[in-house]
């Protein structure tokens, strides 16, 4: 294992400290616990707060979307593990501007458990919460069990849109409805080439031989639905795009936002090679790409691989994506 780290156990606290030192104008820790991070201007009076959370090791996922026009707070777990319910509660209290708080995070058992516990404790504090789960990974469950799918990179669309809705003054129910709507129209699929090495254990997150790829891989290295010989970028792009178009029932005349996301160790060049073919494949089907994101939006430490997400667009969704936003890791407008 070759990593630029100190004590593996201190890894999370130390990178959080680094983020806070780099961006004191945008982010802060409300109390003593470094595992809770909120917008520097939190709580914003009268605005719906949005709290996310999950395991570390996915930057910019979770922490990177706390900012203006985005999310208000995050509860930070250890690498690939859930934050605690009390950390979620602390984030909730720190961002509550008296308009309620939306919990928007990925559908994973540990996270659901701890966020659900936090909803009870928030209620005891007199804070109204709603929960919306990211569940965009089409490889994790078939369409008829879409509610059980894992949440992966596509949750970024929901962060952006719900954040914009909250920023313009929508109510808690409206912000939750925006998040639900986006998630219902988002589909993601990934391909893994090389595992990440967990800093605490020094072990790889999955095993894959040098000439193989895993299609449908999860963001923690969960197995996909097909393991086979590594194919060309064009074939990978075409395979994933076709699956996503089918899952979203997109047809000619449709409009989409595309996210080509690197898992951490895949160069930007390769992501653009992928995007090129995704764009072609969509255009061939008569589908217009109205918005695109190419880069690292949800990683898995140094896993090699990429995921492709599509969001079916209408005017409302596009307007929310285009609204101004700023965090240390994300900027729009």
């Amino acid at each position, binding site marked *: 294992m070759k990593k630029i780290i100190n004590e593996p156990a201190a890894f999370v606290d130390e990178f959080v400290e680094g983020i806070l030192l780099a961006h004191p104008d945008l982010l802060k820790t409300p109390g003593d616990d470094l595992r809770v991070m909120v917008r520097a201007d939190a709580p914003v009076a009268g605005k719906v707060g949005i709290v996310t959370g999950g395991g570390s090791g996915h930057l910019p996922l979770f922490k990177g979307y706390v900012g203006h026009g985005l999310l208000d707070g995050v509860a930070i777990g250890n690498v690939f593990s859930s934050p605690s319910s009390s950390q979620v509660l602390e984030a909730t209290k720190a961002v509550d501007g008296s308009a309620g708080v939306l919990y928007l995070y990925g559908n994973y058992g540990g996270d659901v458990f701890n966020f659900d*516990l936090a909803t*009870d404790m928030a209620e005891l504090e007199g804070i109204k919460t709603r929960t919306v789960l990211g569940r965009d990974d089409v490889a994790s469950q078939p369409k008829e069990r879409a509610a059980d799918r894992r949440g992966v990179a596509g949750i970024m669309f929901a962060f952006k849109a719900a954040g914009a809705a909250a920023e313009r003054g929508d109510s808690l129910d409206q912000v939750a409805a925006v998040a639900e709507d986006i998630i219902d129209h988002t589909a993601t699929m990934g391909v893994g080439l090389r595992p990440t090495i967990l800093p605490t254990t020094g072990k790889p997150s999955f095993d894959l031989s040098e000439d193989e790829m895993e299609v449908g891989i999860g963001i923690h290295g969960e197995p996909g639905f097909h393991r086979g010989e590594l194919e060309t970028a064009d074939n990978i792009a075409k395979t994933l795009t076709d699956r996503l178009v089918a899952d979203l029932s997109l047809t000619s005349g449709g409009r989409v936002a595309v996210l080509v996301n690197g898992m951490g160790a895949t160069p930007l060049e390769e992501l653009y090679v992928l995007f090129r073919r995704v764009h072609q494949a969509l255009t061939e089907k008569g589908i217009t790409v109205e918005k695109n994101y190419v880069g690292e939006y949800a990683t898995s430490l140094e896993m090699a691989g990429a995921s492709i997400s599509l969001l079916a667009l209408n005017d409302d969704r596009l307007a929310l994506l285009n609204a101004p936003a700023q965090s240390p890791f994300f900027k729009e407008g």
Partner: protein
Amino acid sequence: MDGKELNAAIRRCLAQLTTYSDELGDLDQALGDGDLGITVSLGTAAADEALLALPDSSTPREVVLACAKAFANANPSTMAALVAGALLAGSRVLGESPTVAPEQVGRFAMVAAESISQRGKSQVGDKTILDAMFPAAEALLETHPRERAFDAAIEAAEHGVMTSKELQSRRGRASWLQERSIGLQDPGATGYLRFLQSWKATNRTAGVVQKAEVSE
């Protein structure tokens, strides 16, 4: 029983329950992460403090909610959050009534158990606090004459603790022990039994059925 009486009854019960902290901590050392003793001692102390600060005019529901909040805030353990959520769910049974009706006791206990079951995705047989909670709640709801219900609940909880001793833990840290968890007594279920026993020892002098209320 009105809010003021319930407040005093809970404080008497907690004073007794806290004497079991070491026992519960030792059980949890063997099967979990060992923090249940701290959870109980800090939680009971915080609840006691919160109850003392409440006005005499508080409704039973307000009394229960004060306990829940104090318990959750006293320590950041999963168990504390589960118990707080259970009390919150149970408190809805009480409504805004100024008194606790005897028939609400069983429903309170059942709703509290269902809350933990739902939040923790666990059932009876997973070797958790539920192995004591569900049988006790059923006994409270189904025992006639009602005067015997509380003793029946204690027996049912005791039986649940003993039965689950031979089971393998399926939830929480204890599940990591796999078959090594067999033969060890579940700390959560034991804590619930000790709660019922504490309630009986401190509040059941006149044989009147009083409100069973969940706490570790």
